[in-house]
């Protein structure tokens, strides 16, 4: 009950929660980095004129987008040790899962971003004699990134929230560490409401800054 809310429990838990939060941040950061790199490649493949390439990229995206993230996590938690040939620990399996899963979403965002750059721009680049790579690098992608940055950042907030799903394989992230203390001390209300408030404050402040950024960016 609320009148028994014990702040001391939360204060004592801070170092352990911080350890978990660090893992949450690390996983988010690495998955964004990996997902962006793979996502750019996928987006370029999807927009490529080479039919089999764009078909493969589209299949990849549709495949991952029709699967629940938890199932993807289970898949790689199970598969990665088989592929590598030895146990690698949950963190790397989960990182692979998040990277491949996010790449599908980043690909779609970037494809939309690239397509939002008017055709005339790319044609003008070609007319100037730029190669495909130069055209992408100097003309199309800089404009595309400007258009899609707010959506990419929003997706990063979603990913940050989604990393809590590592709970299903028991990785010690923010939520799991809170749950460990909650069941040890039988203080579910204190710990779970702390987790909710921390996530809320972090995500809301980040979303609000994205909106400010978006207002500055929009023409």
């Amino acid at each position, binding site marked *: 009950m609320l009148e028994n809310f014990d702040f001391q429990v939360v204060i004592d838990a801070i170092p352990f929660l911080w350890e978990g939060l660090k893992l949450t941040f690390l996983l988010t950061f690495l998955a964004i980095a990996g997902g962006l790199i793979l996502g750019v490649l996928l987006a370029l493949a999807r927009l490529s004129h080479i039919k089999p390439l764009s078909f493969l990229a589209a299949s990849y995206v549709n*495949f991952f987008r*029709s699967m*629940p993230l938890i199932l993807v996590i*289970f898949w790689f938690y199970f598969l990665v040790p088989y592929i590598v040939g030895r146990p690698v620990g949950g963190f790397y399996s989960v990182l692979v899962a998040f990277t491949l899963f996010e790449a599908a979403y980043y690909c779609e965002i970037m494809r939309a971003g690239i397509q939002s750059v008017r055709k005339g721009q790319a044609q003008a680049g070609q007319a100037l004699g730029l190669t495909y790579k130069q055209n992408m690098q100097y003309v199309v992608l800089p404009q595309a990134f400007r258009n899609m940055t707010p959506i990419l950042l929003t997706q990063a907030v979603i990913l940050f929230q989604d990393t809590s799903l590592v709970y299903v394989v028991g990785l010690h992230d923010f939520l799991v560490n809170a749950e460990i203390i909650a069941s040890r001390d039988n203080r579910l209300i204190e710990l779970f409401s702390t987790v909710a408030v921390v996530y809320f404050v972090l995500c809301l402040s980040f979303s609000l800054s994205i909106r400010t950024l978006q207002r500055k960016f929009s023409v």
Partner: protein
Amino acid sequence: MNYNWNWGILITEPYMGWIFSGLGWTLLVAISAWVIAFTLGSVIGIMRTLDQPILRAIGATYVEIFRNIPLLVQMFLWYFIFPELLPEEAGLWVKRGIPMPEFWTAVICLGTYTASRVAEQVRAGINAISQGQRQAARAIGLSPAQVYRYVLLPISYRTIIPPMTSEFLGIFKNSSLALTIGVLELTAQTRQIEEYTFQGFEAFTAATILYIIVTFIVMFFMARVEKKVSIPGVTSIGAK
């Protein structure tokens, strides 16, 4: 790779039964939650387009709260914390009195969460209609409620069919989170098969294919609905 393939496991009882019962729960959770998400989301989305600042603020607060807390955390809040906040008797009833408390918790959690996303789609759909429509409706003497009932909503719901389809597929996939509080839906059942038989590859393949099939059916069906209800010249087919 050293793996003993055994695809026969999928048509062996009890495992085949587990998979289909899992699929059944997944669909039941998703569809029940969608009822809440659609109705509550519509109310909140409409509230955000009204003239009254208080209603707009309530709608905006709802959306921010539900969008900025991870769904899994919300699941735990509903399951562990919500019964504690109620008066003692009501709390006990929620925990033990109602049949299948895990199922209802999952439905309410997914429904209220997705409602915040549906609300944003509804709001965007209404705001995308030109002001002239609203003004014209007012000018011919419709009451504010009638403006929504006969002009704004019929147009906006048609235009937001594609994003609403995505939201439904989202709830369908997110229903897998119900496994964290003990609902034996599709993902949970295949995970269980993996733990019992070590045939993870076969089990997860079955789940993956079923998820893809349902996604495909929903998209196919909704594309037909979109085509059927489109107003020529107002809603454009295929614009996503």
